[in-house]
């Protein structure tokens, strides 16, 4: 599984406007294009997940995630904040890159979900480490950089 294979260009927002954790989560969930109820449910479950410990994994990356009944397949959305957002990350630094993963409840243990999380964690850290990351201007450049780093 590669990061470039699970990210869909129309689910990328390179200019997140929010300055708070809750706001970022809302903007990310919006990218999944769910109906109102599903969106509210996912948001509530994500917030509950954050209560267990921040999904800010350091190096400027956060990977908010949950499993929810309201999706039928793994859905991924990507956001970038130019100014960075305090996400109570493990290294106490701001997060700039956010990769949201919502998976259906099937699978016990949830193999695909954990593999997707691992792929995202690894790929996202490579991205924020690269000097070109902050200079990316459009989604095409973003996808190109991911593919390059994967090679």
């Amino acid at each position, binding site marked *: 599984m590669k990061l470039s294979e699970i990210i869909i260009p129309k689910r990328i927002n390179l200019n997140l406007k929010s300055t708070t954790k809750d706001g970022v989560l809302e903007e990310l969930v919006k990218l999944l294009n769910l*109906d109102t*109820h599903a969106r509210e*449910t996912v948001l*509530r*479950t994500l917030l*509950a*997940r954050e*209560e*267990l*410990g921040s*999904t800010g*994994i*350091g190096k400027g990356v956060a*990977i908010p995630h*949950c*499993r*929810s*009944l*309201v*999706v*039928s397949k793994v859905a991924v959305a990507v956001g970038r904040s130019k100014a960075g957002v305090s996400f109570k990350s*493990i290294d106490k630094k701001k997060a700039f890159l956010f990769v949201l993963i919502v998976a*259906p*409840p*099937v699978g016990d*243990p*949830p193999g695909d979900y*954990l593999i997707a*999380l*691992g792929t995202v*964690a690894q790929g996202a850290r490579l991205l924020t480490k690269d000097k070109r990351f902050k200079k990316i201007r459009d989604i095409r450049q973003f996808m190109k950089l991911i593919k390059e780093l994967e090679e």
Partner: protein
Amino acid sequence: MNPQLRVLIALQDILLLLRDARDPGQKRVLGKMGLKINKLETLESTKADLERQLSPSILSQYRRAIQRHGRIVAPVIKSVCCQCFVRIPSAIDSAEDRNTSLYRCENCGMYLYWVDK
């Protein structure tokens, strides 16, 4: 969306989150990614808050179903109940009020939620 169905779905997501959080295998895998899990008690209180929003009869059905199957709501995907994999009768599957009324699977008794309606 039916208000009781909304609560049941929220509860089921929370129960799954609790189950995942308590699974030592998952905890180990997540830990390697830099994801620490703690403060389960906050989640327990969220769960209790949601349970208080259920009507007495649905609450007792919920408790029985959770004990027996670990869940109370089954997603319906492509006209099939994802708990028992039995096809939902077409009159119900195409009903206007699915998700706004409460429907249960005639085979396994799960409350039904149509995903990607």
